[in-house]
Each structure stands twice: as C-alpha cells, then as structure tokens.
C-alpha cells in the first residue's frame, strides 16, 4: 500500500464505517439498515487491505458482504409485515443505552491511549498472505480448521431442522 495516501484512505474508510454503523443501529426501516450494513462491512474490508491482510479482506467480501448480508435481507423479506416503516423500532432503553455505550467507549479509548503496546517494526510485512495462511491452516492449525468445518456442518443441519415446516 502506497504510504502517502494510506492515512487519507484510513480516515475515509473509518468515516464510512462509523457513519454507516450508526445508521445501521438508528434507522427506522430495517431494510435500509441492511443496505448500510453492507456498506459498513465493505469499508471494513478496505481497512483490512490497509492493514496488509489481503486474504482476510477477500474473505470479508465473500462471506460477510456476499453471504451474511444476503441472508439478512432474505430474513427481512420473509418477515416483511412487521419490519415496515411506521413501527417503533427501538425500545425504551435508548437514554440508558447511550450513557452505557459512551461510557464504555470512553473507558476503552482512555485505556488504549494509556497502554504501551509491544510493537515490532523490524519484521518485514509480507506482500502476499494467502500462501502463508494456507500453509498454517494445513499444518499448525489443522485441528481447529477441521473442528470449525464440523461447526459449519452442524449449523447447516441445525438451521434446516429449525426452519423446516413439519
């Protein structure tokens, strides 16, 4: 990544992530929320590219933007009668939730500003991460890799069993 424009790209992507994230949690029409969720997830993929994680960015676009967001829109369409405009979408906890969230974010920002991170700058960042991640998934992390595929299979069967009509 060209280091001259990288800071501007970071602020651009961060702005889009934060604004679209706020719209996801505040808009009344749940379908618009899903569209802004797609925008937010896409900008997070841009953040991954800035961090040099090209494989994670591709997985983000394929899985989140391609699969999960479509699944969300599918569920919204199937429950369209109660998702429409004109129905109150937020409960009575909004003021206390604002206080809690602002306090949490303030404490987190204060903490990470105070912490001294063990940053390593002398190691070279590899250009292409896909081959290294693939090798690690097939050697060091092969047991979690197999377990997570069983988890996916269980979720697949579980979703079919739960949503099936008798």
């Amino acid at each position, binding site marked *: 990544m060209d280091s001259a424009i*990288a*800071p501007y790209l970071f602020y651009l992507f*961060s702005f889009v*992530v934060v604004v679209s*994230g*706020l719209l*996801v*949690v505040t808009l009344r029409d*749940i379908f618009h*929320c899903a569209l802004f*969720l797609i925008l*937010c*997830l896409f900008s*997070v993929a841009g*953040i*991954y590219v800035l*961090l040099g*994680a090209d494989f994670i960015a591709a*997985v*983000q676009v394929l*899985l*989140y933007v391609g699969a*999960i967001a479509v*699944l*969300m829109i*599918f*569920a919204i369409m*199937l*429950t369209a*009668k*109660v998702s429409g405009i004109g129905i*109150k*979408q*937020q*409960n009575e*906890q*909004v003021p206390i*939730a604002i206080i*809690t*969230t602002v306090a*949490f*974010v303030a404490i*987190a*920002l204060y903490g*990470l*500003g105070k912490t001294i991170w063990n*940053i*390593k700058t002398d190691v070279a*960042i590899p250009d292409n*991460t896909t081959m290294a*991640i693939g090798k*690690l998934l097939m050697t060091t992390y092969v047991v979690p890799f197999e377990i*997570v595929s069983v*988890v*996916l299979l269980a*979720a697949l069967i*579980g*979703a079919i069993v*739960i949503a099936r*009509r008798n």
Partner: protein
Amino acid sequence: MEISLAHYLALAAILLGIGMFGVLTRRNAVGILMSIELMFNAVNINLVAFNRYVTPADFTGQIFSIFVIVVAAAEATVGLAIVLLIYRNFRDIFVDNINLMKW
C-alpha cells in the same frame, strides 16, 4: 501523519460501541443480529491490527479472525432460522413482545 496501532484500536472500540448500542436498543430481532455482526467486525479489526503491529511474522491474528468470521456465519444462519421460526409461531419478531419464557 502516520497511522498507528492506536488508530485502528480506536476505530474498533467505536464500532464495538455502536454495535452494543444496537443490541441494547433494537426491538427487531434481525436488527439485533445485524448489530452483533458489527461487533464481530470490531473484534476482527482488533485481531488483524494486532497481527499487523505485534506479530507480523506468524499470522496468529489473521488465522483467528478467519475462525471468528466462520463462527459468525454459523451464528447468523442459526439465528435467522430461529427468527423465522419465531415469526411463524408468533407473527412477530419484536423481542419485547416475545416473553413466553419470562414471568
């Protein structure tokens, strides 16, 4: 102007806060699931940022974030199936109206 680790962590903290606000205030169950996805993404930004700045050579954070994405996909699948089942039985997906197991 250099972007440091703290910038990414601050972005992730703000995104986690936004997702938490959504989980606390949404009435629609699909909206709650979408807010949870925002929180998953905040965690993933943290993991990839730590991977880039703290352990750049051994890819621990990136591998972990792949597992987080896969588990998030499984969670979304099962969660939306449950939402559809609730909608079929109650004709309603507002979580404050579904209080059958609450007294």
